């Protein structure tokens, strides 16, 4: 890539980043530009991915392979997929129900055995497994095993909707909430740290683009945005005063 294109790319990247950050102040035309560009680029990317990674290799090529088995295996799913497009034609939109029904049934069929296996049976096994060698465990491991088993039961009871949570049930349910909150707190801290690292990454890029090598891209765009907001504020205030 030529040096000029790299500098141009840096200006675009810095501008789009700052335009999106400008939403922290308030909605503005620069944010709208970045927002719509983002949607367009996202959809363009998604379309070409679907076209080149799915439609060409999974539908077009098997249909033109000349192998009757391959053609047969593609025709039915392709027709079911095409049936979804009939949504755009109200008179025959009922055809789309075949595609949707198939998808719903297929998804449920896939999800139910996997859900039963992983969320139910494996979960019970994972919870009780440490107790098989309970007396060979260290004190801390014993506490851990008990905390997991008790925590699991209490949290599940919190999500048990068939009885009113009162009396002893209320205490079990409250204990479940404590377990949940401890987990959510840890999860929150963990995610926030990850987000900060993303933010530092962005700031690092902006600082990098504010160097002489990139003709002070970040600084100039930042100055431009600030001037716009100041001017916009002054004009709005002036208009308000005139109106009053």
């Amino acid at each position, binding site marked *: 890539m030529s040096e000029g294109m790299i500098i141009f790319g840096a200006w675009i990247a810095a501008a789009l980043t700052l335009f*999106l950050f400008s*939403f922290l102040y*308030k*909605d503005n035309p620069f944010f*709208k530009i*970045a*927002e*719509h560009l*983002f*949607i367009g*680029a*996202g*959809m363009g*990317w*998604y379309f070409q991915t679907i076209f080149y990674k799915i439609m060409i290799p999974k539908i077009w090529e098997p249909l033109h392979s000349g192998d009757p088995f391959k053609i047969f295996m593609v025709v039915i799913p392709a027709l079911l997929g095409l049936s*979804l497009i009939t*949504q755009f034609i109200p008179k025959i939109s009922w055809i*789309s129900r075949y595609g*949707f029904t198939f*998808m*719903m049934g*297929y*998804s449920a069929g896939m*999800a*139910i*055995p996997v*859900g*039963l*296996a*992983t969320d*139910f*049976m*494996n979960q*019970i*096994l994972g*919870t*009780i497994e440490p*107790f*098989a*060698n*309970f*007396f060979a465990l260290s004190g801390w491991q014993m506490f851990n095993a008990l905390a997991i088993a008790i925590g*699991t*039961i209490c949290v*599940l*009871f919190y*999500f*048990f*909707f*068939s009885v*009113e*949570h009162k009396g002893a049930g209320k205490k079990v349910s409250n204990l479940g909430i404590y377990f*949940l909150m401890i987990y*959510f*707190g840890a*999860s*929150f801290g*963990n*995610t926030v740290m990850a*987000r900060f690292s993303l933010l530092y990454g962005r700031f690092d890029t902006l600082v990098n683009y504010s160097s002489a090598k990139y003709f002070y891209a970040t600084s100039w765009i930042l100055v431009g945005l600030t001037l716009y907001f100041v001017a916009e504020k002054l004009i709005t205030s002036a208009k308000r005063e005139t109106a009053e």
Partner: protein
Amino acid sequence: MKNTLIFLTAFLTFSSYSSFAASQNKVKPAAISQIELKNFEALDFPYDKGESGLLVWEHTPELEGAQFSVLVSTVSDKEGWIEAVKFSAGENTADKINLPFWSFNKNKNKYAVALEFNNILSSQVKEELNYFAKVKIIKGKNISETKVLSSKIKGNWFRADRLNNLIVFLVVTLVFFIVVSHAKKKGLFIRRIAGLDAIDEAIGRATEMGKPIFYVPGIGVMSQISTIASTFVLGEVAKKVAQYDSYIKVPHYDPIVMTVSKEIVKQAYTEAERPDSYKEDINVFISHDQFSYAANVDGLISREKPAACFYIGYFMAESLLLAEVGASIGAIQIAGTDVDHQLPFFFTACDYTLIGEELYAAGAYLSKEPMLVSALKVQDFGKLVFMISVAVFSLLLIIGAKMEWKGLAGILTEILKVY
């Protein structure tokens, strides 16, 4: 001349001695004898996709201390031998095979070697395959070989090893039908869920303020349970919006979810006897890119300033981006997701948050539909079984560990394990 003769004599003497010594030192290859292993069989590995074979034979006293080398060939019984596995006596017994006790005889006195041809051939086995196998037994200096056996590997239609999963599924289905018939005769009790009671309040507030309601179903696809649950809630919210003659906007990430949601909202308006109020632009497609979707929904929220925002479905990193903007414009916000690591963000930015199971319960709670309520009851049944199982099995295992009941942990593990 004399010197030359001496040199030649010495050279010839040395050469002949070297040849003699070399012939004496040459190691004769050990003779490989034939051996008969008791009940030696080559089989197709039971209950698999058709990628493995199985060699079995019984342990006998003369095999003590031996080493086994299992050789397989997919070419012929004469060539193309590959060493599949090498092990010592006492290893690779039948109890090590990863199948439960009800589908495989786990005799510890029997050797069972699973021949995973995907690994052995370093390529994917795609169709039925004939293989040849023999076992080389090395015991000290003695090496013996079995006769060559052959078998065919093929996929199995029925996975008996997953029988436990099938039984649980059948029990759950049976309970579901019993509960449905019970629910149709007389209603079933569901405890109060605060977040869902607030839905009426949020829609009422939006109606009074004359502002729209935003319902964001997240970035899930139609196969995700949270998205399915979200469409149920959307139906109920849309019905109330239609009754109050308020306005709802549903921005979408996935085109299929949008199409399903369109049908649901249209149905809700019809059920509320307001089909004329239904508009095609209630459901709008935004983008199938996570952050451009979030950016646009943020933009819409900040421009249209809805009085109530619902974030119900599957959410990832955009959860806080959306909820923050909703909070900044002072909208009443109700969120619900089963993505546990996004829930803390909704807790911080929303007024009410439905946690995981509460979201699944929402559709039933709001509609009181016998079918949905029954589904909720079946979930509760599952939770009850789970709680009792954990409590009882944990106690049993602790008692078993104290009393040294060998085998109890193994049986429980195999019953609960997913193969």
